[in-house]
C-alpha cells in the first residue's frame, strides 16, 4: 500500500471505489451517457411502432420474444413498458446523473477552488446508490411481466395493479432518491464551506449557482416522492389502500381491499417532486451554457446578478407550481387560479435568464467552436420549449392541450435540444480539463449540425400533432382515431429523424473515445478562460490545485479594458 512517505491506492480504490470527486464525476458522466444512449434506443423502438403501427419490427423484431413482440409485432404492453422506462431512464438515470452528478462533481469543486467535495465517502456512496438504482431499473426488464409500464409518472391506481416491474421501479427510485439526497447535501456543504479564499457568493460562476440551487431542489423535493414511493410499495406489498378508493372494480371483479385512499394523493406527491425536477434538469444546463457563452463571446455575462437572483427565485417558485400538471383532475377555480398565476410568475425569471444570455452575445467576439455551437443552439431550442409552456401553464388552453403531443413536444424541446445540447456543450468544453486533450472540432461539427436538424425533425411535428388533439401514450400513435388521421403521416418523418439522430451520434462516440488517445494535447487553460477550474492542471491531480487558489475578482472578467489579455483569471491579483 505505502511506498515510504505517500500512500498509493490500489486499482479498485483508485478507479472503482474512489472518493476523488473527479473519478466519481467521470463515473457519473459515463453512467449518465450510457443510460442516455440506452433510453434513446428504447425511444427508437417506440418510434417504429408509431410510424408503422403493428407492423413487424425489421431485423431485430425477433429478439424480444413472444411475450413482448410475437412475430416481431410490438404489443401495446411492450410499448407502454418502453415509454415508461424511456421517461424514467432519461430523467433519473440519464440527464440528472450527467448534469448534476457528472458535471457537478467534476467541475463544481474545481470552480470554487476546493481540493475535493466536503464528504468524499458520502460522494462515493451516492454514486453507488445511483448505480444500484440503475441496476434495479435495468434488471426490471427481465422480470415476469416486464418493467414498469404505467408511464414515468406511475399514476395510481394503474401502477398499483401493474405487474411486478412496478415494484422494481419503486425500489429503484428509492435508490436513486437516496443517491440524490446524499449528493445534494454534499454539494450544498461543499459550496458553502469550501469556497477558496476571496471567492464570495457573487464571485461564483453562474454554473456553481445553478448547481447550488439545483441541490436545494433535490434536497427538498425528492423526499415527498420517496414518501409516495414508500406508500405505493405498501399498497403493492402490504395490501394497503393509500391510492385506492372504495368500490374499485377491475376487469369486472370487485376488489377486496379496505379502500378509503385517494388516487390524486399520488399525483400531488409525485408532482411536488417532479415539477422542481424539471428545473433540476434545466438549471445545470443553463449554468453550462452561461459558462460557454461567456468564454466564447470573450466578454462578461450580461446581467450576472439578475441571473443569480432569477435562478434563486426560480428555485423557490418551483415548489408552488406543481398542480399545473393537474388542471383537469377536477380542479376548482380558486386552485386553478392560484396555480396558473404562480406558473405565469415563474415564467418571468426564465425569460430574464434567457434574455440575459441572449444579450450577452451583444458586443462579443464570438468563437464558433463546437461547445459554443451547442450552447448557441440551446438558446432558440430552449426558447421554443419555454414558450410552448405558456399555453400549457394557463388552465383554459390546457383543456385542449393537456396530455396531447403538444406537451411531449414542449418538454422535449426543453430537455432534448435544450438540456442535452447544453450537456454536449459541457462535454466538449470540459473534456480537455478532465483528460488533458481536446476533442476533434471537425467531428464535433459533424455531430452538431445533423443533431440540430434531426432534433427539430422529431419534436416540431409533435406540436402540430398536439394542436390536432392527438393524445400522448397511444401505442399506435393515434391511428385508431379519425381526428388524428391528418397528422398521422408526420409520425414517419419524426421516426426517420429519430433514426437519423442516432446516426448523428456516431461522430460523437468516435470523437469521445478516439480523443482519449489521439486528441490534441492541451495546457491547463486551452480556452483562455477565467474561472478557477482552468487554474488547475489538466487533468487535475489528487487534491486538484498545485497551490491553493486565492480569488481576486468576479468570474467573467473577459476583455477588461486596459488589460493585457482578453481574459483576466479570477486568481490574477490586482
Amino acid at each position, binding site marked *: 500500500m505505502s511506498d515510504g512517505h505517500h500512500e498509493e491506492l490500489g486499482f479498485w480504490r483508485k478507479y472503482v471505489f474512489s472518493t476523488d470527486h473527479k473519478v466519481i464525476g467521470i463515473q457519473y458522466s459515463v453512467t449518465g451517457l450510457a443510460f442516455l444512449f440506452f433510453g434513446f434506443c428504447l425511444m427508437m423502438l417506440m418510434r417504429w411502432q408509431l410510424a408503422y*403501427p403493428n407492423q413487424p419490427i425489421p431485423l431485430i423484431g425477433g429478439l424480444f420474444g413472444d411475450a413482448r413482440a410475437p412475430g416481431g409485432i410490438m*404489443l*401495446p404492453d411492450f410499448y407502454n413498458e418502453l415509454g415508461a422506462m424511456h421517461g424514467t431512464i432519461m430523467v433519473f438515470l440519464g440527464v440528472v446523473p450527467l448534469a448534476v452528478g457528472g458535471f457537478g462533481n467534476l467541475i463544481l469543486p474545481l470552480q470554487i477552488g476546493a481540493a475535493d467535495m466536503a464528504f468524499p465517502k458520502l460522494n462515493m456512496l451516492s454514486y453507488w446508490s445511483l448505480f444500484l438504482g440503475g441496476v434495479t431499473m435495468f434488471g426490471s426488464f427481465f422480470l415476469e411481466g416486464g418493467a414498469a409500464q404505467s408511464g414515468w409518472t406511475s399514476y395510481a391506481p394503474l401502477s398499483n395493479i401493474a405487474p411486478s416491474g412496478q415494484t422494481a421501479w419503486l425500489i429503484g427510485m428509492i435508490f436513486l432518491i437516496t443517491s440524490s439526497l446524499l449528493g445534494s447535501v454534499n454539494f450544498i456543504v461543499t459550496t458553502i464551506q469550501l469556497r477558496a479564499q476571496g471567492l464570495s457568493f457573487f464571485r461564483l460562476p453562474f454554473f456553481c449557482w445553478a448547481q447550488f440551487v439545483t441541490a436545494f431542489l433535490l434536497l427538498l423535493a425528492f423526499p415527498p416522492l420517496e414518501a409516495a414511493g414508500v406508500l405505493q410499495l405498501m399498497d403493492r406489498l402490504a395490501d394497503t389502500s393509500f391510492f385506492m378508493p372504495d368500490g374499485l372494480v377491475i*376487469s*369486472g371483479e370487485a376488489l377486496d381491499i379496505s379502500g378509503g385512499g385517494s388516487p390524486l394523493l399520488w399525483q400531488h406527491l409525485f408532482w411536488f417532486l417532479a415539477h422542481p425536477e424539471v428545473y433540476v434538469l434545466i438549471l445545470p444546463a443553463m449554468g453550462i451554457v452561461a459558462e460557454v457563452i461567456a468564454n466564447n463571446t470573450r466578454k462578461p455575462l450580461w446581467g450576472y446578478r439578475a441571473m443569480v437572483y432569477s435562478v434563486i427565485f426560480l428555485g423557490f417558485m418551483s415548489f408552488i407550481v406543481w398542480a399545473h400538471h393537474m388542471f383537469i383532475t377536477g380542479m376548482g377555480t380558486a386552485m386553478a387560479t392560484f396555480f396558473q398565476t404562480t406558473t405565469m410568475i415563474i415564467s418571468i425569471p426564465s425569460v430574464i435568464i434567457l434574455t440575459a444570455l441572449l444579450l450577452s452575445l451583444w458586443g462579443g467576439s464570438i468563437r464558433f467552436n463546437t461547445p459554443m455551437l451547442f450552447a448557441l443552439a440551446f438558446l432558440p431550442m430552449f426558447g421554443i420549449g419555454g414558450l410552448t409552456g405558456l399555453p400549457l401553464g394557463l388552465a383554459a388552453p390546457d383543456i385542449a392541450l393537456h396530455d396531447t403531443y403538444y406537451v411531449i413536444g414542449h418538454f422535449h424541446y426543453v430537455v432534448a435540444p435544450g438540456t442535452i445540447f447544453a450537456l454536449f456543450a459541457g462535454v466538449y468544453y470540459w473534456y480537455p480539463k478532465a483528460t488533458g486533450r481536446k476533442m476533434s472540432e471537425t467531428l464535433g461539427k459533424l455531430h452538431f449540425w445533423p443533431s440540430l436538424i434531426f432534433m427539430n425533425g422529431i419534436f416540431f411535428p409533435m406540436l402540430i400533432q398536439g394542436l390536432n388533439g392527438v393524445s400522448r401514450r397511444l401505442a399506435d400513435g393515434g391511428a385508431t382515431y379519425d381526428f388524428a388521421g391528418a397528422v398521422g403521416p408526420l409520425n414517419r418523418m419524426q421516426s426517420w429523424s429519430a433514426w437519423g439522430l442516432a446516426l448523428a451520434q456516431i461522430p460523437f462516440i468516435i470523437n469521445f473515445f478516439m480523443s482519449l488517445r489521439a486528441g490534441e494535447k492541451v495546457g491547463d487553460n486551452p480556452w483562455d478562460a477565467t474561472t478557477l477550474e482552468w487554474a488547475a492542471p489538466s487533468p487535475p491531480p489528487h487534491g486538484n490545485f498545485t497551490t491553493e487558489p486565492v480569488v481576486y475578482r468576479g468570474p467573467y472578467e473577459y476583455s477588461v479594458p486596459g488589460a493585457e489579455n482578453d481574459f483576466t483569471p479570477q486568481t490574477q491579483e490586482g
Partner: protein
Amino acid sequence: MRFGRNLFALATVSALLLSATAVAGTVTGTVKFEGNAPKLRPLKMDADPGCAKKHSTPQMPEVLALGDGNTMGNIFVYVKGVSGNFPAPSEAAVLDQKGCKYVPHVMGVMVGQTFKVLNSDGLLHNVHSLPKVNQSFNRAMPATVTEAEYTFDKEEFMFKIKCDVHPWMGAYVGVMTHPFFDVTGTDGKFEISGVPAGNYEIEAWHEKLGTKTSTVTVGDSDTQTVDFAMSVPKK
C-alpha cells in the same frame, strides 16, 4: 427419481390402454331449460364499429343459448372425481375471437394442454384470464397479432376469460385433469366417451344457473343416459 419416472410412464401407458380398450363406457344426455325464455337485450356491439360491421342482425348474449324445445347450449358437463393419470392431448384447445364473440363460449382444456387463442377479427382484442389458481394472463392482441398460446398447470374448475376492449365478450374455461367432459350445443346434447367403469357423479354447469348433479354407474362398453333440467333459482 428414476423409479418415480418409470412408475409415471407405466401409469400413463396403462391409462392409455384402459381408455383404448373396451373397459370403458359412454355417458350421454340432453340438457333442457325449464322456464320461460326471457327477452334478452342485444349486445351493444355498436361500442366498436368494427364489431358492428361484422353482423347484419342484432347479436344476443350467449348466457342463454336455447334450441328448439328449450334445449340448452353452453352447458359444461363433466364426470366428477375421476382419478388416475390422463395425458393431455397433443392438439391444442382453441378459443377463437370471431365477430367480437368468443368461440366457443364455454370450453374445457386439460392441464398441460396447449391453449391457443386466435384473433380472426382483424381488430384489437384484449384477452384477459381471471383464474384464481392458475397464472393469469392479460394480452392485448392488435389486429395483426392472430395467435397466442398458453398452458395451465393446475386443475381449476371454471374461470372467466374476458376481453377488456369489448366488455360483453366473455368465455368460461375449465381446466381438467381428465378428458371426461363435454359442452352442449344448442341441441342440448353432450357425449362423454371412454369413461372407465365405475360409479360417478355427473355435473352440469351453467355460468348463471349454477350446477346440477346426477349419479350414474358406468359399466364396460355401455352407454348411460343422463338428462339435466336447469332453471332459474328461486329467491
